[in-house]
Structure formats: structure tokens, C-alpha cells
């Protein structure tokens, strides 16, 4: 239950930070800012979905985590790490070709890693892990 509460608190903090960011006028219609805000919203949605599914399992008197959910997380994490190495190589290539600031590249890289993890998690869930 502690994990679930921590997940919800972090999601709320991220949403609050995003709202503050928008209220301060940092989201000014620039496509890059809108995409970043969109990605953050998707990731928060994913975190909330995981939290809700844990609560639902508890209500159904099932364990919040079991061997399948742990293996899906492990497999998705290892796959995401592997892909992220190539992703950072791509970011390095882009940094040479463009004049983007370092903090934008690092921010984009971190958000990209989170998106890669989300996609890996969805992939593992969709295709299963028969030969794991």
C-alpha cells in the first residue's frame, strides 16, 4: 500500500509542477513545450493507471504484485535500458547537428527514456513473455 500512496503523491506533485509551469506562462504555444507537457501527462496517466490497478487488486483480495507483474516490470526495464543506450547515442548525434541547449537535450533524453519504458511495458504486456 505504501508503494501505491508514494506513486499517487509523486503523480500529484508532477501535475502540480506542470500546472505551475503552465500558469507562469512557460507553455506559450511553442510546439516543443506542448509536446513535453503532453509526454509528462501521458507518463502521469501511466503512473495513475498502475496505482489504480494495484488498489483494484487489493479490493478484489488479490496481491497488488505477483510473479507476472514483477517479471513484466523486470523485462520491460531491461529492454528499456537496452534501447535507451541507442537513444542517448541518437541524442548525442542530434546535439552535434542542432543548436539546442544542453538542458533541453537532457530533459528530452530523460522524458524519452520514460516513454521508452512505457512502450516496452505495453509491448511486454501485449505480446506476453512465453519464453521468459
Amino acid at each position, binding site marked *: 500500500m505504501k508503494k501505491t500512496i508514494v506513486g499517487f503523491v509523486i503523480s500529484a506533485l508532477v501535475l502540480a509542477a506542470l500546472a505551475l509551469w503552465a500558469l507562469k506562462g512557460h507553455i506559450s504555444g511553442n510546439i516543443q513545450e506542448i509536446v513535453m507537457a503532453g509526454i509528462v501527462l501521458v507518463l502521469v496517466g501511466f503512473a495513475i493507471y498502475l496505482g489504480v490497478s494495484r488498489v483494484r487488486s487489493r479490493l478484489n483480495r*488479490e*496481491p497488488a504484485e*505477483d*510473479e507476472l507483474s514483477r517479471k513484466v516490470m523486470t523485462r520491460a526495464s531491461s529492454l528499456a535500458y537496452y534501447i535507451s543506450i541507442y537513444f542517448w547515442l541518437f541524442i548525442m548525434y542530434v546535439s552535434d547537428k542542432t543548436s539546442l541547449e544542453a538542458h533541453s537535450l537532457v530533459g528530452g533524453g530523460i522524458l524519452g527514456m520514460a516513454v521508452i519504458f512505457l512502450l516496452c511495458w505495453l509491448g511486454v504486456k501485449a505480446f506476453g513473455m512465453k519464453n521468459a
Partner: protein
Amino acid sequence: MHNRIKELRARHDLSQQELARLVGVRRETIVFLEKGKYNPSLRLAHDIAKTFGLPIEEVFLFDDEAAKKRVTV
């Protein structure tokens, strides 16, 4: 590896949720097992077989052809 979980569950008149509770996993895990998208741990396979009162090899059926291919490669 194939399994007879769906068939045995129907024979014992158990829902996926009930079987999940009996073996201590989430319903989703039973769904994955029945669809053949996940091979269980030895512990879970043992618990499921025990629930149906059968030995593991009568619930989980190993594909001999696939095993032979793995050995010959």
C-alpha cells in the same frame, strides 16, 4: 508448453478470480496463463496443479518437438 488450466477450471466450476485467489496471484496472471502468453514459475505451476488435485505434468504439457529443436540447434 501448453496447459489445461481453462479446461480444468471449467471442470471444477472455478472462475479465473477464484483460481487466482486460491493460488495467490492476480486474475491477470491466470488470463496470461490460459492464453499461453506466460510460462509460470515452478512454484505457481505446483500450486495450480495441487488446486486441481493433479500432478504438474497433467496440467502443463511440454511440447516435445520444440524441446528437441532446442537440443539439436
